[in-house]
């Protein structure tokens, strides 16, 4: 197991990158966007930095989780399954942040906390798929079986990710009502875009840090009876 010590060395680096990038992204978003404000943007759009960053990470981490689960299913590698389940909880947290910040933003701009708009509804389903994956994994005691069953569930749930992505691109407003604005990076003012992208990078580094921390915990739990674990400095 070379992964365990390597992950341990990488975690502080990812934490540092996460804190620095998120701080720069938010600083840029709050202090360098005076031009956008002159064009009549309302202050509440500033929620965009955490909302978009967490929503992108929620969808991206789901794809990452499925990729690990598929590698595990095809090559039967235990570490891939451990990475998949380590990714799930960070993805769930990102989904919750995106939903809560979205609700707060919705209250300011649409006047309502929640609406059964396609984007919001599909994103809520993403949360349920994440929770379903975690619940299925903890419901089966045999790790090999729970890894495989939850991997299949993750693969089936992958169908929701492109649906979320396209849920706002409604061609005819009379056919499908959508409150959530279309995701188009081209229309975003460049300083806001910088703030958004840098904050997203920060959230990505945060995800690396927490996923590696959780993967190490899972490894310790599953390999507790092996000789390499009992030789670790942490337990001597």
């Amino acid at each position, binding site marked *: 197991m070379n992964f365990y010590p390597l992950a341990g060395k990488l975690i502080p680096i990812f934490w540092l990158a996460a804190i620095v990038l998120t701080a720069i992204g938010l600083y840029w978003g709050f202090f360098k966007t005076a031009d956008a404000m002159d064009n009549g943007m309302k202050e509440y759009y500033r929620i965009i930095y955490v*909302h978009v960053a967490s929503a992108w990470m929620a969808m991206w981490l789901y794809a990452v989780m499925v990729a690990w689960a598929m590698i595990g299913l095809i090559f039967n590698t235990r570490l891939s399954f451990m990475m998949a389940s380590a990714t799930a909880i*960070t993805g769930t947290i990102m989904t919750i942040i995106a939903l809560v910040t979205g609700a707060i933003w919705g209250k300011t701009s649409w006047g309502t906390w929640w609406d059964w708009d396609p984007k919001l509804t599909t994103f809520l389903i993403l949360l349920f798929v994440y929770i379903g994956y975690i619940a299925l994994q903890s419901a089966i005691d045999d790790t090999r079986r729970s890894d495989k069953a939850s991997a299949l569930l993750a693969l089936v749930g992958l169908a929701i990710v492109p649906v979320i992505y396209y849920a706002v691109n409604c061609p005819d407003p009379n056919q499908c009502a959508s409150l959530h604005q279309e995701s188009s990076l081209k229309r975003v003012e460049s300083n806001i875009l910088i703030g958004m992208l840098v904050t997203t990078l920060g959230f990505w580094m945060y995800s690396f840090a927490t996923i590696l921390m959780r993967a190490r915990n899972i490894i*310790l739990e599953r390999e507790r009876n092996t000789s390499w674990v009992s030789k670790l400095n942490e337990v001597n």
Partner: protein
Amino acid sequence: MSEFFHMGGYGAYIWSAMATALVLMLLEPMMLVVKRRAVLKDIKRIKRLEERQNRKN
């Protein structure tokens, strides 16, 4: 400064959104550290028990 926190009347919304992200993103690593300590403690305990067992034999 207070104008900055006021955010044109939307301060409560913006700062509660930021606080939600901050709180969750602090809780997650804290819980991971707590979990790690618990697992390590458990491994150490079992190791001690085994060593005692080996000495008896």
